[in-house]
């Protein structure tokens, strides 16, 4: 018996747990699939504000944007099994949000048509500009900026939906052309052309700010 030697048996290596905030989207989705609810909470904390902001600029209606953003996460949650990690999660969730927003726009259009026929008289369709709470004292310059923001928001909201998606994703959300092409399921050239066309339409509407 060799008294001086110590036998060490490696039965397993305990991996240190990576904090949620440092895990990739795919890792979080995998964890959520296996029942880790905190992983889904981290997914929400990453995307809830970008998605809400994106939908808000798309619809120009904060309450509707929040509602659709929540619906987006619900859809993501129930479609986790069908999600493929072949492309970025951000693309996936923006695509869901975009589809929901487009459906909402079409629903509104139908409702407006019905209201024109008198079936829904009195329903107020005019979207109101949402101002996030800001407790600072307002200065003149800020008042001007607020007015300018309203005009820009209305101009964006008046764009045809195919240009609106492209412009909002690019200029509001700062997504790359490749990402936007994937979200809209279009070619890169078409995507760039739509962004350019959307900006051109906005230029006509916002002439006074140049």
């Amino acid at each position, binding site marked *: 018996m060799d008294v001086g030697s110590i036998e060490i048996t490696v039965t397993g290596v305990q991996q240190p747990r990576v904090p949620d905030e440092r895990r990739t989207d795919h890792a979080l989705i995998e964890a959520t699939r296996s029942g880790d609810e905190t992983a889904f*909470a981290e997914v*929400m*904390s990453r995307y*809830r*504000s970008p*998605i*809400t*902001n994106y939908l*808000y*600029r798309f619809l120009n209606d*904060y309450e509707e*944007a*929040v509602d659709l*953003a*929540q*619906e987006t*996460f*619900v859809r993501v*949650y*129930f479609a986790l099994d069908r999600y493929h990690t072949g492309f970025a999660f951000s693309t996936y969730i923006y695509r869901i949000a975009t589809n929901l927003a487009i459906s909402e726009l079409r629903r509104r259009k139908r409702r407006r048509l019905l209201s024109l026929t008198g079936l829904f008289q009195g329903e107020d369709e005019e979207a109101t500009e*949402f101002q*996030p709470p800001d407790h600072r004292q307002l200065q003149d310059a800020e008042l001007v*900026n607020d007015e*300018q*923001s309203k005009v*820009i*928001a209305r101009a*964006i909201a008046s764009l045809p939906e195919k240009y609106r998606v492209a*412009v909002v994703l*690019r*200029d*509001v959300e700062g997504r790359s052309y490749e990402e936007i092409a994937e979200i809209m399921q279009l070619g890169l050239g078409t995507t760039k052309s739509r962004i*350019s066309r959307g*900006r*051109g339409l*906005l*230029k006509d509407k*916002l002439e006074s*700010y*140049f």
Partner: protein
Amino acid sequence: MDRIEEKINHDERRIAKLIGTLRHVEAPGDFDTRVRARIASRRDKKPSISWRPVLAGVVAVAVLAFVGYLGMRSFAPNAPEPNVSQTTATEQPSSVQNQHSIVAPAPAPSGSQAPQTLASDKRPTTNKLLPPAQQGGSIDEASKDAHRPFAKEYVPSQHRPGDNSGLGTAEIPVTMVLEAIGVRATWNGGWQVNSVEPKNVAGRSGVRPGDIIDAINGQPLSETTSFKGSFSGKSIRVRRDGVVLDLAFKP
């Protein structure tokens, strides 16, 4: 050209910058809670039955049944009308039941009115069963409603105009026979066929429009030929392009 592109790019950058000045909105504080509540409520929701496929199935079955019914009617134009066949089936000898036949009522014994009354109670007494030809119309008029299913066995009323005996001396006029075998014909010195129901007896037996019918069951036809007693179709002689053809009735 470069200047134009440069100008466009310059304008686009300014627009992008202008849009970039928009303040970013944040999700509300209870966002996660509300999402979890929605997820929980949908998870608990029992899978509801979608009525659309069920309704579509019911409609499809109903349509198929209706189409099948119509199909059966169109493929069986000679199917007996229940009232008539039930009435006469018991009176028809079994040997002629499979033949295409028109049956005049058997002469009743003179002086005995009771059986005749019973018979007329059993069968319809109105002239509905008589073709319009019997009611004073032409053979063409009579054939207008030839599309209706024709009873294989036909019992004319014993109280036809001109039949004053009322005791079973019924005769079946040639017009009725022609209608029964599915032929529309006019008398032009001979019964010239105008049209033939392809699925009826004459059509199946090979009678064609343009043929002139000379005889049925060997009996030469005139304008007023009638068949006494019961008529059972066996053969028909036609002239086609000057050629005389004897055709056997195919039931």
